[in-house]
């Protein structure tokens, strides 16, 4: 983890240095997208979270890239995003004219070794990463009134509305298991919003929502006494540790809640496996990716564009609704997240895949 800190700082410094150098040096002129069209491949249908995220960024990217190219969002859905990512891996040329927007749903099959995955993250260059966070809450019918009653959950049967064992809901699945909670995962939900509805109907008694959905839709329930916040998944600090989410300073993070419940800080292989999926699913959930062998000056041009757009009034006006209170990151910070969000030890991968097979009948492809 200290490695991460060093590389992070170093890389961030380098990125800023290159950015600074490019502002002044003639190298700036070499990357010029004038009159070009950049395709931003989104491997999901229009209207979803990733699509909205890309459509939010696309006009700003167009404004701040050298030469003001047209940036169009191209939806190529299929195979839970593996199809679009596979096509990108085969087709995209390293000229900066094709960008891929991945999500946790693209990272997870890669981490799990899904045979449909024909792409290799390690070949790719990251241009920007957009983090997100989430809060786990429960129903007062469990007898839990505040997070201090967390231990009460241990002796009862909990129900969670899941989108599938290999979906983004793998993070809560691993997290609850790590805590020793007895949670029945009911699959087949279409999204976290669908799951929240099941919670509101009283069909489930534990749920989580991403931060902005939590603030907009669950806080009213908390105020009405119909939901009790437990913990946030947390955010990564400079050293790569999971700490409290600054959006929810009063709610403990997952490691804190774990410690409240067990008396020990979380550690070990199972925790490492959880962390790998957590990072791929939250701090590094959405990534803007450039193809293999993209020259550094093109990557830097994208870095600068994503960095400078943060001051744009349009960005500032709408970022809350799209990104929640999290900042999109570039350069070394993004590279650190990229590295951690796409790496898992073979042993941990095997453990997770075996557990999913044994408990949930998951067969990956074949």
């Amino acid at each position, binding site marked *: 983890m200290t490695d991460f800190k060093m590389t992070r700082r170093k890389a961030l410094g380098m990125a800023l240095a290159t950015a600074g150098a490019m502002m002044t040096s003639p190298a700036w002129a070499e990357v010029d997208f004038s009159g070009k069209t950049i395709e931003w491949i989104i491997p999901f249908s229009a209207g979803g979270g990733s699509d909205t995220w890309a459509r939010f960024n696309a006009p700003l990217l167009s404004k701040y890239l050298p030469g003001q190219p047209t940036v169009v969002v191209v939806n190529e859905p299929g195979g839970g995003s593996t*199809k679009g990512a596979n096509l990108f891996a085969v087709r995209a040329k390293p000229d900066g004219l094709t960008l891929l927007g991945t999500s946790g749903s693209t990272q997870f099959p890669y981490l799990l070794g899904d045979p449909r995955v024909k792409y290799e993250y390690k070949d790719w260059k990251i241009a920007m990463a957009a983090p997100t966070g989430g809060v786990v809450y429960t129903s007062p019918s469990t007898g839990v009134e505040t997070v201090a009653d967390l231990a009460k959950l241990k002796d009862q049967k909990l129900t969670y509305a899941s989108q599938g064992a290999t979906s983004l809901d793998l993070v809560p699945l691993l997290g609850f298991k790590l805590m020793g909670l007895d949670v029945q995962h009911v699959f087949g939900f279409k999204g976290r919003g669908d799951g929240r509805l099941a919670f509101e109907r009283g069909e489930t008694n534990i749920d989580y929502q991403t931060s902005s959905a939590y603030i907009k839709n669950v806080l009213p329930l908390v105020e009405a006494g119909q939901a009790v916040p437990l913990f946030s998944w947390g955010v990564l600090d400079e050293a790569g540790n999971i700490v409290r989410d600054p959006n929810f300073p009063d709610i403990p993070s997952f490691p804190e809640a774990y410690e409240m419940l067990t008396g020990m800080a979380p550690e070990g292989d199972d925790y490492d496996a959880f962390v790998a999926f957590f990072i791929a699913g939250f701090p590094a959930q959405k990534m803007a990716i450039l193809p293999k062998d993209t020259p550094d000056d093109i990557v830097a041009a994208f870095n600068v564009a994503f960095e400078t757009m943060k001051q744009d009034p349009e960005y500032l006006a709408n970022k809350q609704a799209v990104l929640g209170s999290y900042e999109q990151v570039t350069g070394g910070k993004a590279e650190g997240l990229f590295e951690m969000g796409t790496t898992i030890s073979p042993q941990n991968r095997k453990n997770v895949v075996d557990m999913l097979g044994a408990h949930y009948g998951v067969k990956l492809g074949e």
Partner: protein
Amino acid sequence: MADTLLAALSALMTFDHLLYMLIGVTVGLVIGVIPGLGGIAGLSLLMPFLYGMDDISALAMLIGLVAVIPTSDTFSSVLMGIPGSSASQATVLDGFPLARQGQAARALSAAFISSMFGGIFGAVVLTGFVVVARPLILMFGSAELFMLALFGLSMVAVLAGRSLAKGLAACAVGLLIGSMGGAPATGEFRMTFGLGYLYDGIPLVVIGLGLFAVPEISDLLRRNASISDRPPLGSGWAKGFRDWYSNIWLSIRCSGMGCMIGAIPGLGGSVVDWIAYGHAVQTCKNPENFGKGDPRGVVAPESANNAMQGGALLPTMLFGIPGSGSMAVFLGGMVLLGMEPGPAMVTTNLDITYSVIWSLALANVMGAGICLLLAIPISRLTQIRFPLLAPFMITLICFAAFQATRDIGDLLALLSLGLLGILMKRFAWPRPAMLIGFVLAPQSETYLYQAVQFYDWSFVTRPGVIIIGLLTLASVIFGIRKRVDDTGHVVSAAKDTDEHEGRWTSRAPQIVFALMIVGLLIVGLKDALDQSFLAAVFPASVAVVGLAMALWLLPELIGGHRGHVSHYDSELDGETVGKAGIGGLWGGALWIGGLVLASALIGFYLAMILFFVAFLHVRARAKPLQTLIMTAAAAGFILLIAKMLSLNFPSGLAQSYLDLPWPFR
């Protein structure tokens, strides 16, 4: 509340807002006219313009677009028999026969007036209910949603046609096809046969176009004449209005149903037109004409599908849960505008909510008005010699089909399902029954599994479940009494048709087709048995039911007396038999197959251009200049849409060797 309502209205009634709404409506109408393009395409088109617009104008534009798509999609359903979008599939059953009788303008007018009424009805219901809807929507849990799916399936009874066995077997095949891809409970992949394309199942658009549009196009091509077999009858406006007005109660009932189905998140809007159509047949007096051009068969689904959009706004705005694909994009648009749906939409943001509702009503009036003006000129299309129209339609349905996943697999699936559709039409297997099965398969399976997980089997004693169960039972009973067959004829079960002499030889084709269906069911059963219990139980049960129906049907086909109800072969009994100038059954399919094959080799865009030239020259015998102009027009049109939607055409074998520029790559 009344203050907010009026304030919202006056905020909307400025020139700017109305102009933006008109832009939305215009885009929506154009998108709706092109088959296969729905709200998703339209909203993605408008998304880039949302930046910098004020909230009310932007919402008015988005709503304008979403509201009128089910209005204008009626054009292709009525005039060409191609479902304009999944919301207008049922309109084809009666709208198209009306067009063929030269009454296109009448059918369109009735449809547009019904659409407008349904849309306004939806807005009115929304106005009253939006504040109190939250608890009502929360009453529908997984158990109730499962029962609603069953209610939808009960419409098979009324649409099963002469032979109930065929209807139920077709529905079983639909359910089986609908369960392809990942199982909801375990994520196991079913019936993928190692093809990457099938991992997500076959898209609804492809099923709808394959089962309905391809057989219609083939049939029209054989006849070599224009769509309408007689000159247009009068202007049609007044007649259309009377058709709606004399069935106003039907229109109200169907609007109510559409609104409710839209408001319940999870059922999806794709089945609403069939439920409305089935309801019309179940409850109307003298249903003999359904399927032959009964205007009530147009009024019912068109009232329902526009009202549905209003209903679907409820879960979208209140819970942030999109009721349909276009609502998902609308939701994305709201987020881009910095608005987040949630309970605040009926408290602090109530003004926004009401401006959305008012926009909905206004957009429906605008949309229907424009469509009414266009109805008469556009309905002249039915007078054109069909071979000149056919290449446009074939290109259009292929273009529409690959909108689904933008994969060459879409075209192959379209072709396969088209062949199935042609055979089903020939042997009077009810295609609506298969479609309903397909649409409701994921809902039936997912919600049953979830209900059992949440409540155990005791879910059947929940009051909501019992109520919907009784409704379903009533629907089955009414349905059995008034059955409509595939080509729409309402038949009493006892009525026989003539059949040609000879037992085995004349019946062999239909027996072989029934055996093909058996084969399909067996493949599904075998695949299911390789899965774990939770993934297998649904497709296996469905396949067993289907096989039981086939076992009931086969002896009737083989040994039934002459003219038995289950016998039908349009090549023996149909209206084209023995007429002069009728082409072969497979002509249309061969041309479509040629286009698909060429696309697989050289990519869609090049293939489409070649197809146009070949078809117009060889089949339509057009003059060289005419061929050139029509090909250029079509190529330009397709290119324009593709450019606007920033989409890549499916590439073929050649593209993997050659690096061609867009649009050829």
